[in-house]
């Protein structure tokens, strides 16, 4: 195969060396953490003062990641089933169909995404209640 000496093609890739003197594109994790956007689909949150325990989230979840459990205190008087959802993060795919069907919009997704634990049972995630925070703020 004939091959001509391609001096331009040999020298030009070395122009990449100029990036040695520029700022790195990466973050210094874990000292510097990435900020997620507002509508990021992260861990679930449930405002138990609004949750009516209808179980629609459990019904639409195709991964069977949501099951309805009995809470210590039922915070909404209209919660006739007296149950609240719990998520198994080992199964959840963060499609957010559960939050789409929630009739009272009590179930939402936060923008937190990092969970580290040595206990595999921690994947069974008791969804944090956001109604507490509102009361404290109020």
């Amino acid at each position, binding site marked *: 195969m004939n091959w001509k000496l*391609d001096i331009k093609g040999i020298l*030009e*890739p070395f122009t*990449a060396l100029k990036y040695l003197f520029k700022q790195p594109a990466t973050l210094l994790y874990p000292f510097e953490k990435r900020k997620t956007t507002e*509508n990021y*689909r992260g861990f679930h949150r449930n405002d138990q003062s609004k949750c009516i325990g209808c179980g629609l989230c459990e019904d*639409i979840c195709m991964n069977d990641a949501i099951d309805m459990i009995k809470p210590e205190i039922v915070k909404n008087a209209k919660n006739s089933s007296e149950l609240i959802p719990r998520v198994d993060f080992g199964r959840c795919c963060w499609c*957010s169909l559960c939050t789409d069907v929630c009739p009272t919009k009590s179930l939402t997704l936060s923008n937190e995404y990092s969970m580290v634990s040595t206990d595999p049972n921690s994947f069974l995630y008791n969804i944090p209640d956001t109604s507490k925070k509102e009361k404290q703020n109020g």
Partner: protein
Amino acid sequence: MNKNNQLVKIFHGPQHPGITGNMSVEIDLDGETIVNAETHVGYLHRGFEKLVERRTIPQAFTIVCRICVPEPDPNEENFARGIENLAGIEVPVKAKWIRTMVLEMQRMTSQFLWMAGQGGSLGLYINPQWAVADRDLMLDLYEELTGARVYHMYIYPGGVRNDLPLGFLYKLGRLLDYYETRLPEYDRIFFNNAVFKKRAVGAGYVSPETALKHGVVGPVLRAAGFKKDVRRYAPYEMYENLEFDIPVATESDVYARALIRREEFKQSIRILRQIIKMMPKDGPVNVKLKNHRQFTIPKGETWVRTESSRGEFSYYMASDGSEKLRRMQVKGPSMVHAMSLLPEVIKGGQLADVAMIMNSLGTCPPEIER
């Protein structure tokens, strides 16, 4: 051949430097020359086509994006359009524009991933570093628009899930400006690189007859001299209102396919600039569907197709009047490119070129097996 004068058999894969997913090529070697090759799959079968039959439509749409890992959106769009055809749903105009925008953004991210893989398969490791970093900037925009970075689950039957966030088109325009400045840099390190040219020119030749015989699609077909693109000959969404060129070449080797993809990247920038100008300011972005157990689809069948960065994706869907699909059949480009074309193309070539040719043909194992 080994000392007993026999061909040496090796498995190339199932892990590869340049492609997403697992598949292997069984190769018979005479020295470094490939005498015979056969593709083996079976490492990634997840049974999506069957799973779709067991799920209601809103439940099924969340798994179709997983059919092809680097390109989820063409699958989402194809599935959504198929369901809309079957159920007779009219999608709002703004949703169609947003879908077209998302598809073009996806094409660009996928081209970056191809660029990373092609560099990785050749040992040019600046390429993966740069391409993945630049792709990440587009993923940031995806995160803002859809809430997820890779599996967006955004395009669903009836429209898209949410409207554009405030200032999104401005950010997209700025990113396109940045990508335009980056393209000459990629030319310098990759497309004009003497090493890449020396390896790629003449390697992995696909003759026009072979391309037609195997039913090849996408950049591989266009590099063989056929000006075929689903966006042009069977326009969907808003592509008929947009101006763009379809790059064609006749050399049909790895280098020609690389240049075709580079030109397609430029065309995607051109299309996205038009979309930014033409995007409707307001209007609905979806139609409200019934509860997922009551959303039944009339009996019928349909066939929809879309152009992904590696070629035509087509779905055959049949419904029996219930809330679930009776059958869904997916045909992706890699089925042809990796299963039947690749063994023929690498025959007579060198062992070191297998990864490069595999990447150049746009191999994506998840989509072969679904």
